[in-house]
Each structure stands twice: as structure tokens, then as C-alpha cells.
């Protein structure tokens, strides 16, 4: 009697549902495996060390998890999500399938958008850390703006890519980005042009060393012994006065090596 009921139940449910159920179970297993695998791979390639100290990692730690765990979980859910769609397809549920097909197209994009966003936030934090580390020796309070600017630039790019991924119209934001990049490149170039030209000449001077420390040279109306040369300037000393000559001047005016 009992045995008969189970067989009846088995018979009433169509085979395709059983297949769908099987697909679902395999999907859960695969998702779990992906999660474990992703976590190990991320650890192995040194992600935890690379993102140590970033704000995102700290926040994640506060909630008792870590960035690696979050990323691994997302990857796991992604695989599981694919399995769900496969199951729906196998079960051939018509009215559901129509709805899910639309979602299925969208979900991978959403998935990548989230990954890009997390990556962008991490990268931004890291860039901020690196830049502020670079400027730590410089005791100038205003310099604190630079790391923040670098950080938010990276955030902005990440948000832009993520929005582009899910298909939101980002035209206006891209125009803004273009204006920003233009401002940095153009105005930066304008502001640094003397340094740039001095640096270019300095590279030549340092590589070829037409004159070196100890030589007596004349640049324009400055004449003296070269005391020091670096990428941007040459120190020329005469009678206790040390002239700091920009390297670009050495090129535009030419120099004379005094041999006597």
C-alpha cells in the first residue's frame, strides 16, 4: 500500500520536473564548489594582501566577512543563478520562461556590474593609500586633497563602467568625464610645461653628459663650475654664488664648456 503511493506520486510528477530538480541540485553543488574555488584562488593570488587597509575591506570586516568572501559568494550565486535558469528551461514552464528569459539576459550584466563596482571601490581605496603614502614625507596639509581626488576619479570610472554594463544612459556622465580628463591633461600640461621641457632636456643631459660635475661651463651670462645636475636643473657655482639653471635654458641658449 505504502509502496504503491510513492510510485503513484512519482508517476504523477512528469519526468521533466525531476530532471529540473536534478539540475537544481547540481547547480547548488556547482555554486558551492565555485565559491570554495574562487575563495582559494583569490587568496592564492594575494588579493587579501593587496587590499589590506582599504576602506572597503575594513567595512567588510566590520560585518564579520571579508572582500574575498563577498567576491567568492557572488561568483557562487552566479553559477547557482545559471542553474536555476537551466532548470526552468528543462522543466519547460512556458509562462515562467517568458519572464525569466528577459531576466536571464539582464542578470549576467548585473553580475558584472557588481563585480566592476567592487573592483572599482577596492582600486580607488588602494590608489588613495598609495598616493597618500607617496606624499607622506611632504609636510603640507593641502596635499591631502590629491589622494581623495585620485580615489574619486577611480570611483567615477567604475560607476560609469558599471552603469554602462546594465544599460543605463551614461552619455552626460561621459561628457563630464571627458571634460575632467581634458582639464587634467590640458591644464596640467600647461602648468607643467616648463618642468616637462626641462625634464626632456635633463634626460638627454644625464644620458649623454656633455658636461659633468666639476666642469666649468657658461650658460647665457652665468659662468661657473657645475656642482650638481639632475633631471630638471643644473647647479652652477661661481664665487660662492650657486646658480640653479633650468635644463631647458641650457638647451635654448646653448652652453660653453670652458677649457683652460
Amino acid at each position, binding site marked *: 500500500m505504502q509502496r504503491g503511493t510513492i510510485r503513484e506520486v512519482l508517476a504523477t510528477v512528469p519526468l521533466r520536473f525531476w530532471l529540473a530538480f536534478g539540475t537544481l541540485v547540481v547547480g547548488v553543488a556547482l555554486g558551492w564548489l565555485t565559491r570554495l574555488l574562487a575563495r582559494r584562488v583569490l587568496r592564492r593570488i594575494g588579493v587579501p594582501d593587496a587590499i589590506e587597509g582599504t576602506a572597503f575591506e575594513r567595512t567588510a570586516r566590520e560585518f564579520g566577512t571579508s572582500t574575498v568572501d563577498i567576491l567568492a559568494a557572488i561568483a557562487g550565486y552566479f553559477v547557482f543563478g545559471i542553474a536555476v535558469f537551466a532548470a526552468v528551461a528543462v522543466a519547460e514552464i512556458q509562462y515562467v520562461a517568458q519572464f525569466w528569459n528577459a531576466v536571464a539576459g539582464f542578470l549576467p550584466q548585473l553580475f558584472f556590474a557588481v563585480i566592476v563596482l567592487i573592483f572599482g571601490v577596492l582600486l580607488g581605496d588602494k590608489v588613495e593609500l598609495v598616493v597618500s603614502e607617496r606624499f607622506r614625507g611632504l609636510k603640507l596639509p593641502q596635499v591631502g586633497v590629491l589622494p581623495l581626488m585620485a580615489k574619486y576619479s577611480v570611483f567615477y570610472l567604475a560607476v560609469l563602467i558599471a552603469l554602462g554594463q546594465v544599460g543605463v544612459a551614461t552619455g552626460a556622465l561621459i561628457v563630464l568625464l571627458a571634460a575632467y580628463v581634458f582639464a587634467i591633461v590640458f591644464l596640467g600640461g600647461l602648468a607643467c610645461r616648463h618642468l616637462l621641457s626641462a625634464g626632456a632636456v635633463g634626460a638627454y643631459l*644625464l*644620458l649623454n*653628459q656633455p658636461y*659633468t*660635475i*666639476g666642469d*666649468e661651463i657658461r650658460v647665457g651670462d652665468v659662468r661657473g*663650475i*657645475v*656642482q*650638481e645636475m*639632475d633631471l630638471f636643473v643644473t*647647479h652652477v*657655482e661661481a664665487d660662492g654664488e650657486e646658480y640653479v639653471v633650468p635644463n631647458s635654458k641650457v638647451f635654448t641658449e646653448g652652453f660653453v664648456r670652458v677649457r683652460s
Partner: protein
Amino acid sequence: MATLRDSLGDFVDGVDGLFLFSPSAAYYERFADADVPRVVVADENDVGAESFVELPLEFDNVRDRLRFGVEGAMEHGFVAAGDTVACVISVFEGGGDADSLVRVRVDEAMRSGIYDLFTDSRAEPGVIRDVFEVAIDLGKKGQKGKPVGALFVVGDAGKVMNKSRPLSYNPFEKSHVHVGDPIVNVMLKEFSRLDGAFIVSDSGKIVSAYRYLEPSAEGVDIPKGLGARHMAGGAITRDTNAIAIVLSESDGMVRAFKGGTLILEIDPEGY
């Protein structure tokens, strides 16, 4: 009945300043209520002291360390000639905080120029420290187990180059090696086999090796018994604004000259 505490109390009676050499933060705070100004002498101001003298080298010789601290404080105006200060300093290694109290009377005669050597030379203090470290390292290890000598002329490189001539091809020509670069110790160790002086610029660039110095040796006052290397090093500092750091081949000491006089003597074995 005078206890030991009462008798030794004389040591800190009427002092005008308290010098703490490389104190820990907790040790520094212990003196927060002291009624005399505190001066910290350390390699880094990590206790946030108001009066601070930077120690470029952890001088093994306690006298040198004291001198450096007191001269630095005089230079900064923390103390003046005529003051009496108490110095809390560590003589032996590894004892945690300081183990000795020294009462020092500050006066102009104390000035040996040791502070001046580091901070008021043409070359940057960091460069001078790096050259000292290279010389000490060279003195400790020698070359292939044998003691070596070396002569570094630091700062005012243009003038020094004009007061010297090459003994052979300059191995550092068209190179951009700075003292303090990681590979430099090995490089200098190899080149120390060559005779002649190393010339280092104000910013630490090694300009040349193999230089024969040609200063006029008049009026150079260096102790008798030191050889030609010291004489050449001492003399060039009289003729130019450079300083000379000499590693002696015979007794292994590192000596520094400025303005033609011997300023500092360091035994590499102590580091």
C-alpha cells in the same frame, strides 16, 4: 641621616634642562610633571616632543652621543652656554630604557663640531649619514676578510673635482649611482681595492672613484701617526667646503674631517 637617594639628589639639583636620549613614549611621559624643559634626542621624534634633536647615527660612543645632543640643543636654542643639564642616557645595549644619568655643564668649549658636521655641511644630512654607514660597513667586513681603507669626499664636488686628478678611468662616469642605493655597498667594496678617493656630490651622487687629491696641505692639523690617506682627506676639507670620511686601513677606524680638523672618530666594531 642621609640616604642614598638624598645624596644622589645633588645630581639633578638646579638643572636647567633634562635631556632624554631615545626614550620610549611611556618613559617620556614619566617626566611630564618635571619642572624643567625636556629635550628629546633620538633618531625619530615618535614621542611628539616639542624640543627635539635628530640623531643621525646611533653613536656607540656615549660621549659623542652626549656631545651631539648638547650641541644640537645649543644650535636650536633649547639651552645656552652656562646652563647645567641632566642627561638620561643608555650606555649598555638592550637594557630597555636609559641606565645612566650624566650631569653636563654646557659651554662653548664643548663644541666639537660634531653636530655641525652633520647638519651644517654642504651635503645633505641624509647623504652624510649614508656615507658613514657605507664606511662603517666596509670597516666591519673588509674586503674578502682583509681590512681595507677608503676615502670619501662628500659635498662641494665641483670644486673637489678641480682640485684632484684621475688616477685611471672613472668607473662611475655616466652612471647615476647614489650612496644609499641598495647595490652601492657591494660596488664600493669592490672599488675600494683601487687607490684614490671617492667623490660624492651634495645630493649623494657618486661622481668619481680613483681620484688623486691635490690640496695644499698647509695648516692642516691632524694627529700624528695618521697616514697619507688621512692627510689628503683632511687637507681637501680645508681647501673646499667638503667633508672627508676616511676609513683607516691600519686601525680600522672611521674618521671624519671638516675644515681641516678631525671632528669625529668611530669604531666600526661597535655598530
